[in-house]
């Protein structure tokens, strides 16, 4: 869910884009500062490579710049930026036929700080979660990631994906169900081994 801090950033970014679309060139730097870290996080998860993710961030901002004449003043810029980033990531993925990797570094860093036994259990759970998410269809996976990892609200995720709020809720629910089933199956399997 979108926190109040995320909402403030989204609001500030939307107003910066408004000003940029109306011709205030200085607002573009402000827009970059507000959006680039989030877009880079999203694109890094899609590509698994820092360099490629940064290239895509650059392209996303160039597309936003070129399409500023079509930007709807007063609109929420976040879904638009993520929709452009996602489309570019899909396009690059198709061109390069590379596997989409998941960002496990953040989780790994957290897990290293835990006690060895619980860290092992958490690592295994994280691997199951990662594998389950990777196995999902792209639209379902992205809907889940936009809400869970990128801090978009359900409405923003729906807009970014060009679908309805109900459809995004359904995709997220299916993802949670898939994760629950995978983790439950793992627990049952371990119980049988003991």
């Amino acid at each position, binding site marked *: 869910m979108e926190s109040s801090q995320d909402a403030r950033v989204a609001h500030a970014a939307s107003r910066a884009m408004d000003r940029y*679309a109306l*011709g205030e060139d200085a607002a573009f730097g402000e827009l970059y500062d507000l959006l680039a870290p989030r877009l880079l996080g999203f694109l890094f*998860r899609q590509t698994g490579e820092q360099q490629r993710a*940064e290239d895509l961030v650059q392209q996303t901002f160039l597309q936003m710049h070129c399409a500023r*004449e079509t930007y709807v003043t007063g609109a929420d810029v976040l*879904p638009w930026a993520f929709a*452009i980033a996602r489309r570019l990531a899909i396009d690059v993925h198709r*061109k390069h036929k590379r596997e989409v990797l998941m960002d496990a570094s953040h989780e790994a860093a957290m897990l290293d700080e835990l006690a060895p036994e619980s860290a092992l259990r958490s690592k295994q759970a994280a691997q199951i979660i990662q594998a389950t998410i990777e196995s999902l269809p792209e639209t379902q996976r992205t809907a889940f990631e936009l809400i869970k990892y990128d801090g978009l609200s359900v409405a923003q995720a729906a807009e*970014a994906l060009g*679908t309805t709020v109900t459809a995004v809720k359904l995709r997220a629910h299916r993802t949670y169900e898939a994760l629950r089933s995978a983790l439950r199956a793992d627990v049952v399997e371990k119980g049988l081994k003991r």
Partner: protein
Amino acid sequence: MTPSSSRSPRASLRDKVLADAASNRARTRSQGQRRAALVFAAAALAGLPLFFAWGGMSHSVDRPISLTIGIAAGALLLAVACGVVAFWRGRSAVGRPGSALLMITLLAPIATYAWLVSWHGRYVEPFSRLGLRCLALTLVSGAPVLIAALYLRKRTVAVNPVASGAAFGAAAGAFGSITTDLWCPLTSSAHVLLGHAFPIVVLAMVGAIVGQRILALRSK
């Protein structure tokens, strides 16, 4: 929740992005709106030479003028409704959901057919025709509107480019059929199907096919 996946880009990326923007000129919103208004106005007028070359409204002179105006007004309302959904993105910079675009694509030909056929039998139709000239007139009047929409939104559609192209085509066809409704005095089912509804389907299909190639964003 602060997005867990936020990452810090290299400082040089900011300079690159700003340099990109500085070296690529982009129109502002007001410049874009002026351009869109001009392009759409030119597109709307592009079908009129054929309309006048084929006799203009004198071709439908045998139908009471009040009915001609009533039919065309209904077609105009439908076209505006389709145009609002297809061309205007409301409060979203991304665009309408795919379901809304699909609904417009289906609604435009069906509503056009139902609207015209509902007038059948209210007056004596002066002749009967297969509908090939109506087909041509609707295509010639609608195609420039579709081309204008594709041109104005070229490489800017991030989601649903196929559905957007189809909706553009259907809305363009609905606009094209206004001219045809002023020109053609026939409302029989078979004629309306071929001459008035079918060209909207054709434009929607062309829009869907071309939309994927022209509207969709591409990486460089």
